[in-house]
């Protein structure tokens, strides 16, 4: 696979993973700045190791053991469920019905909570390690899922998805380390909206392939499917604005 093809194949996993890394980085930064860096870095490294084991065992098993048609059907189903969830939430946020994800607020809350727990200088900071481990593992589970889903088409796709996720992790971590501040400037909702539409499109495409449907131009249909999702979401956001011109800012689980 040449570099350009690899970059194109890795882009969906890169964008989707970057959103998750931003969220994990906010928590690790909060731990590092309030309690010192050793413990959260160890927690992060342990979580990364756990995730690597999950991706390698599950990903390789899926790609090599499960029959292709069944795999496409299962992965298409999972991608569709996962993508629709992101798409729905992003549209509700654009329409002002659900509040936007606020990294700054999450960071402040986390810092206050960590400071209230105190720190003894002589002991290993287990709280810092566990908080960082949990944050990276939980957000990273989504990254692992994204990598496995985008990589399910075969070994080359799996490699591209892994590269995309790793590059996203390196870039987000490097920027956060340089700024020492949560990445509030990242347009998270736009990214989630785009990724939600993209994952849903891949889900429809692969499930279709799994049940024997023929797509005109094969993968060239994906941009058309994506366009349909984007247009429908835009219409839905307009409809919600018409229903609730002032927005609502209610909890996502209440709508």
């Amino acid at each position, binding site marked *: 696979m040449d570099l350009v093809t690899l970059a194109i194949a890795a882009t969906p996993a890169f964008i989707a993973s970057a959103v998750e890394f931003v969220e994990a980085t906010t928590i690790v930064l909060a731990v590092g700045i309030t309690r010192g860096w050793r413990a959260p870095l160890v927690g992060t490294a342990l979580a990364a190791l756990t995730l690597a084991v999950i991706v390698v065992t599950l990903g390789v098993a899926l790609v090599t053991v499960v029959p292709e048609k069944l795999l496409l*059907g299962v992965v*298409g*189903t*999972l991608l*569709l*469920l*996962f993508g*629709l*969830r992101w*798409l*729905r*939430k992003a*549209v*509700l946020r654009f*329409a002002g*019905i659900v509040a936007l994800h606020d990294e700054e607020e999450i960071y402040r809350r986390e810092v206050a909570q960590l400071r209230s727990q105190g720190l003894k200088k002589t002991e290993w900071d287990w709280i810092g390690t566990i908080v960082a481990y*949990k944050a990276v*593992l*939980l957000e990273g*589970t*989504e990254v692992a*899922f994204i990598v496995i889903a985008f990589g399910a088409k075969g070994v080359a796709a799996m490699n591209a998805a892994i590269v995309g996720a790793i590059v996203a992790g390196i870039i987000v971590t490097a920027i956060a380390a340089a700024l020492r501040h949560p990445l509030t400037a990242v347009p998270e909702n736009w990214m989630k909206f785009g990724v939600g539409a993209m994952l*849903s499109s891949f889900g*429809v*495409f692969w*499930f*279709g*392939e799994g*049940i*024997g*449907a*023929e*797509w005109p131009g094969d993968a060239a*249909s994906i941009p058309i*499917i994506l366009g*349909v*999702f984007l247009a*429908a*979401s835009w*219409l*839905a956001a307009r*409809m*919600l604005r018409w*229903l*609730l011109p002032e927005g*609502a800012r*209610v909890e*996502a*689980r*209440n*709508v």
Partner: protein
Amino acid sequence: MFSALRGIWDNTYGLLVDDGQLAVGAIVALAITWLVASSGTDAVRENAGWLLLALVVVLVVANLYRAGRNARRRIS
């Protein structure tokens, strides 16, 4: 350990299901498409992907409309 496993399970479930009705609706759309593709003619099977796309788009718009109505009811 138990809480970590519970956290992983909650997160994995949360990965796929945010709104139960949307998730169930998507599964029903997938099932309808699979049934139509497996019981129809070759031409029907070959075009089943577009049926799935249409079902899912209608589902998303209807689900968001319902969410908007629910939110309006909550704040009024």
